[in-house]
């Protein structure tokens, strides 16, 4: 049938949208959840756009040689320092308890739960995650491990990766998992403009996937990559039965009740009210993975503060949020049996500056905007102690962080002369000595209004700001099309920074750009592709240090805060971060709010 | 509280006794003295007619007896029913007194029936509340009552709404409703004024008949002395909030003393009058009752008025229970005749009303 504007927007903005969006997004820029109107953001980080090969090797690629020390982490595991109380599995805890119903609060609802048709953003992941097993996932250190796959192996330089499936895996409908299902799911995802946007360009357009035998397939990329399986740690790695996919194509209503291989099955789902999952009695990995709850209920509650109140009142067991007010509410409830697991090492709130716009193609204007930005005030008044100031795209705790790079904000005194110079040369861009600019913000929400007012006030001396507030997905389309001079979004923060390349590479710049700043630096591209192809962690770290300096000097974006992803739980909720893979490896916890629910138990 | 009643009544004691009743209303322009020291007795089985023009205080008196005045009314005086202080009973919220011992029928049957309830319900309601009848008992009793008051097809009527009935029928329904609990005292406030002339007499006869058969007492309030004649045992004529003349009916009609009574009598059409007989309406209008002058209130309209009428309010003279009147120059007496002829000679009364000589 017909025309859906959003579909259009998505399609037009396509690329951008998703990739970005997805990742970035979940939190809509500074404010993030708590915006009732914003739709579930798409998510993705994972979708690794331009997977390419490096030298062939056996997988998994582990970073064993560089075990992260306490202050320098490879990735962003649970930040125990900000955990108000240790949940879960500490010593002296009673043993795990089977059964019971886990009630979870999600800050948004999704269109559906079909990973081949709907964006599986963080809140949707809470509903769909337990229904599926991914082909790969991250261990606690952030290295990928095979999950539904038995192995991932590089073929040649890494342009091709061979994946061998586990045998004996059954879907909820009783059919067995085989290579045909993987091929069908991957092709369905490629065919969906929304889902494929950020990863399709990385795969061979003619034959992106080929079946080798009943349990083996090969993925064919366009560039050597040492890290391709990262892409399959997200919704791209969720596999659906091929026969079901055909039915779902004919009947979109099935998107609400997908069939997977995971420990839980969808029992019922009422949009905007509740999604009920029940335990899969025939889980293929029952001997490998302890599944505790009998039933999971996920409630979409757009107002995170309200969800926090309900958690405190004991009406929810667990919730995920990135909203400042909700995080503070949860923290304050520590003495009422509420614990928080906070992660500030993932994505950032970023003001992207369109370097191709008439105003900001002049680096002096970009510098002036950066200097004039009162980041301290933003962090104090909008972060309120939950989200720390960002100096680069990496949190200081991470090994990738270049400690020498500092962002040049809060230097308003340096902005004046630059603005004057710009206006002297480009009077058409200015009025009354101020540069005219268009700002795009995600919203509407209380937070977006505050961000708007704060930015407009701090820039007001030098810039005349005309703000547009739009729902996040529409905003991202506009941003991808270059309709604003500056736009607030949330970005970066992939578990492996290789997945963030798409936001910076020249190849992402076109009519529709995933590179929102539209700044092309061939040197940076070379560096990014170099690190992609190699496994040498020292060299990769070196490269990323260099990229942070390049980014700063380009004044292509202003980083505001490191987003705080918080899981709040009641004290009878255990093992929130104790999930393990089929081989017994602890899984990465709180990946931009995504946690595994099926190994949580209630006392 | 059903003990409140007439069981305790001693022979010779009145059923209802009113002493020095005053009713005042506070209005924005000042106090209105609607009733000014009214006293009367009513004996068991008797009918008292209270007669007067509108505004004379007769309806207010009746409403006072029934405790129906708005809260703004200030009442003093004594009203006893079978020895009980009626106002105290009312203030105490005594159940089953009004409606069972004494009740009232209003002037306009159009408005005194609830338009949104079936007539049967309205009758049955009283029976159920006061006498504890079941729904079906009350209903069949309501049918009987309607039959008693002469409503044709009573079984059908009980299911009808008031607007479906004619005025005469409605008043019969009101009467049936009032009589449902066999009250000892019925106050009928202008019961026929609002109905068609042709049925007035039927209604009055009905009331009289029922009173007789049930041994009820009745206060019949009317502006029409003719209505009182033949139906009332005693008559009290009210003017400007006072009783100006009272006597048993025979005495009063035979030997009236107050010029107002006389004027009232003349103003009624009589069946034996010729068709084009000219009635004598009472000249002038009833007095304003705010800050009345210390004078005979009727003086400005009275053909007998002399200067002494303007100095002080005449007392109601005479023995209680006998013929009493409040007039300095009563009609049918020498003083009256003298006053009249003096005024006729002057062509004007002491209060300034012109008097024609051709009377």
């Amino acid at each position: 049938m017909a025309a859906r504007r959003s579909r259009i927007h998505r399609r037009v903005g396509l690329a951008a949208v998703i990739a970005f969006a997805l990742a970035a997004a979940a939190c809509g820029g500074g404010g993030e959840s708590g915006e009732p109107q914003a739709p579930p953001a798409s998510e993705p980080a994972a979708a690794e756009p331009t997977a390419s090969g490096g030298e062939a090797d056996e997988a998994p690629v582990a970073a064993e040689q560089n075990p992260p020390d306490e202050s320098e982490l490879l990735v962003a595991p649970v930040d125990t320092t900000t955990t108000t109380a240790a949940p879960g599995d500490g010593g002296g805890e009673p043993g795990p308890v089977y059964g019971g119903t886990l009630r979870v609060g999600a800050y948004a609802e999704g269109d559906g739960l079909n990973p081949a048709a709907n964006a599986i953003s963080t809140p949707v992941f809470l509903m769909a995650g337990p229904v599926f097993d991914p082909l790969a996932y991250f261990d606690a250190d952030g290295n990928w491990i095979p999950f539904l796959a038995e192995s991932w192996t590089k073929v040649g330089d890494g342009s091709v990766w061979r994946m061998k499936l586990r045998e004996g895996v059954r879907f909820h409908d009783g059919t067995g998992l085989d290579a045909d299902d993987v091929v069908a799911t991957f092709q369905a995802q490629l065919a969906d403009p929304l889902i494929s946007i950020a990863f399709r360009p990385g795969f061979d357009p003619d034959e992106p996937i080929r079946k080798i035998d009943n349990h083996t397939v090969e993925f064919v990329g366009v560039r050597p990559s040492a890290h391709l399986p990262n892409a399959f740690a997200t919704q791209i790695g969720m596999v659906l039965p091929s026969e079901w996919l055909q039915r779902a194509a004919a009947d979109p209503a099935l998107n609400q009740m997908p069939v997977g291989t995971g420990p839980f099955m969808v029992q019922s789902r009422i949009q905007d009210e509740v999604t009920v999952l029940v335990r899969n009695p025939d889980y293929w990995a029952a001997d490998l993975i302890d599944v505790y709850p009998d039933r999971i209920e996920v409630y979409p509650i757009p107002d995170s503060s309200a969800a926090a109140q309900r958690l405190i009142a004991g009406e929810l067991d667990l919730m995920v949020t990135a909203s400042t007010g909700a995080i503070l509410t949860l923290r304050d409830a520590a003495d009422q049996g509420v614990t928080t697991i906070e992660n500030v090492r993932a994505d950032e709130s970023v003001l992207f500056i369109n370097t191709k716009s008439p105003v900001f193609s002049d680096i002096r204007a970009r510098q002036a905007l950066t200097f004039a930005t009162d980041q301290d005030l933003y962090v104090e008044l909008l972060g309120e102690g939950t989200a720390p100031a960002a100096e680069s795209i990496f949190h200081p705790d991470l090994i990738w962080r270049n400690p020498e790079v500092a962002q040049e904000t809060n230097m308003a005194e340096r902005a004046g002369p630059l603005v004057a110079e710009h206006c002297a040369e480009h009077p058409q861009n200015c009025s009354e000595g101020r540069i005219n600019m268009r700002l795009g913000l995600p919203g509407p929400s209380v937070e977006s209004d505050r961000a708007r007012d704060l930015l407009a006030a701090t820039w007001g001396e030098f810039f005349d700001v005309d703000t547009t507030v739009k729902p996040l997905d529409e905003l991202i389309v506009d941003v991808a099309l270059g309709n604003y001079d500056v736009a607030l979004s949330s970005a970066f923060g992939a578990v492996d920074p290789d997945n963030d390349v798409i936001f910076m590479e020249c190849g992402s710049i076109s009519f529709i750009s995933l590179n929102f700043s539209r700044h092309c630096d061939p040197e940076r591209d070379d560096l990014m592709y170099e690190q992609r192809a190699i496994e040498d962690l020292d060299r990769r770290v070196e490269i990323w240090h260099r990229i942070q300096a390049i980014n700063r000097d380009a004044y292509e974006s202003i980083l505001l805060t490191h987003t705080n992803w918080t899981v709040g739980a009641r004290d009878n909720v255990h093992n929130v971060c104790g999930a393990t893979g089929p081989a017994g490896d602890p899984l990465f916890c709180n990946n931009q709010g995504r946690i595994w629910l099926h190994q949580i138990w209630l006392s | 509280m059903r003990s409140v009643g007439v069981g305790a009544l001693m022979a010779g004691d009145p059923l209802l006794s009113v002493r020095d009743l005053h009713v005042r209303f506070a209005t924005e322009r000042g106090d209105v003295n609607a009733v000014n020291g009214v006293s009367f007795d009513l004996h068991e089985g008797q009918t008292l007619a209270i007669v007067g023009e509108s505004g004379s205080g007769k309806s207010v008196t009746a409403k006072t007896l029934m405790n129906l005045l708005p809260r703004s009314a200030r009442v003093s005086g004594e009203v006893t029913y079978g020895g009980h202080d009626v106002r105290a009973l009312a203030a105490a919220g005594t159940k089953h007194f009004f409606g069972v011992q004494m009740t009232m029928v209003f002037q306009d049957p159009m408005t005194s029936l609830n338009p949104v309830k079936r007539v049967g319900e309205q009758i049955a309601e009283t029976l159920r509340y006061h006498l504890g009848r079941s729904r079906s008992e009350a209903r069949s009793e309501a049918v009987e009552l309607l039959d008693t008051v002469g409503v044709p097809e009573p079984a059908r009527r009980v299911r009808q709404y008031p607007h479906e009935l004619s005025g005469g029928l409605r008043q019969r329904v009101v009467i049936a409703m009032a009589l449902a609990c066999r009250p000892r005292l019925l106050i009928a406030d202008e019961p026929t004024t609002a109905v068609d002339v042709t049925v007035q007499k039927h209604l009055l006869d009905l009331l009289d008949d029922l009173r007789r058969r049930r041994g009820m007492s009745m206060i019949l309030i009317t502006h029409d002395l003719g209505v009182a004649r033949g139906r009332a045992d005693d008559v009290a004529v009210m003017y400007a909030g006072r009783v100006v003349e009272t006597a048993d009916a025979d005495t009063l009609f035979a030997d009236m003393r107050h010029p107002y009574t006389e004027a009232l009598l003349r103003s009624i059409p009589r069946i034996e009058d010729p068709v084009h007989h000219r009635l004598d309406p009472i000249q002038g209008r009833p007095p304003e009752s705010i800050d009345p002058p210390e004078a005979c209130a009727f003086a400005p309209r009275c053909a007998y008025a002399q200067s002494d009428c303007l100095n002080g309010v005449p007392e109601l003279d005479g023995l209680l229970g006998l013929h009493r009147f409040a007039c300095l120059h009563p009609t049918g007496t020498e003083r009256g005749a003298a006053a009249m002829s003096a005024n006729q000679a002057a062509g004007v009364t002491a209060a300034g009303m012109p008097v024609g000589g051709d009377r």
Partner: protein
Amino acid sequence: MRRLGFCFWLAVGWLAMMALVATFAPLLPIADPTEVAFGGPREAPSADAWFGTDALGRDVFSRTVHGARISLAVGGFAIVFGMVVGGGLGILAGYFRGRLDQGVGFVFFVLLSFPALVLAILITATLERSLLVVSLTIGILAVAPVGLLSRASTLVFAEREFVAAARVLGATHGRIIVRELLPNVVIPMGALTLLGMAVAVVAEGSLAFLGLSVAGDNAISWGKMIVDGSGLRDLQNAAHVTMFPVAVMFATVLSLNFAGDRIRQHFDVKELAF
């Protein structure tokens, strides 16, 4: 003629004060309402910030004062629009009767067939939300109620002798309407101005609360201030951010209603069918 009473003048005094401060807000010796970090975030009321500060440390008092500008401007414009358009149509319908009357009456009836806020949403959904559009939208809501009133008054006066006399003297329709009817119809309409304005102010507040009122960086309105402070945590920790604008808005609407109701009684006009 009843006396209007002390409370009436109290209400009028409040309204006059609001109108004055709204008009001269930029000239008043108060903080810049957009100045972020005027104080710390969510500070309680003090001598420096009478109503305390909001989440961005802005002076709530100054913002409340400036917030009156949009509320009153929209309210005032809307009711004037309603009177000009609705009043005009009502007079024409009441004077000419016939087809015109039926047509206009039907239009009014249809307008009243939408719940007010829903009609406003339908309009704001399709147009940019500028000050003019929002004012017009709310003004359109006022057309039918005001129009019905002016039609009713016109019907009464059109029967009077002075109109008949004017007609006999050969006055044109236009002249009769302007010279004879208008002055008479304006009185009852005028008596309802304040009541209508109260409705308009609330309507604007509701739209602002929903984020559908005047957009723009400098748009401070009471509805927006109230929604800004109404998150659960904000309410719990800094209720003053919300409660002061609520109180001022309440006092203003109450004054409009009260004074309006008194004036309505004074001129003995029936209530409006908003």
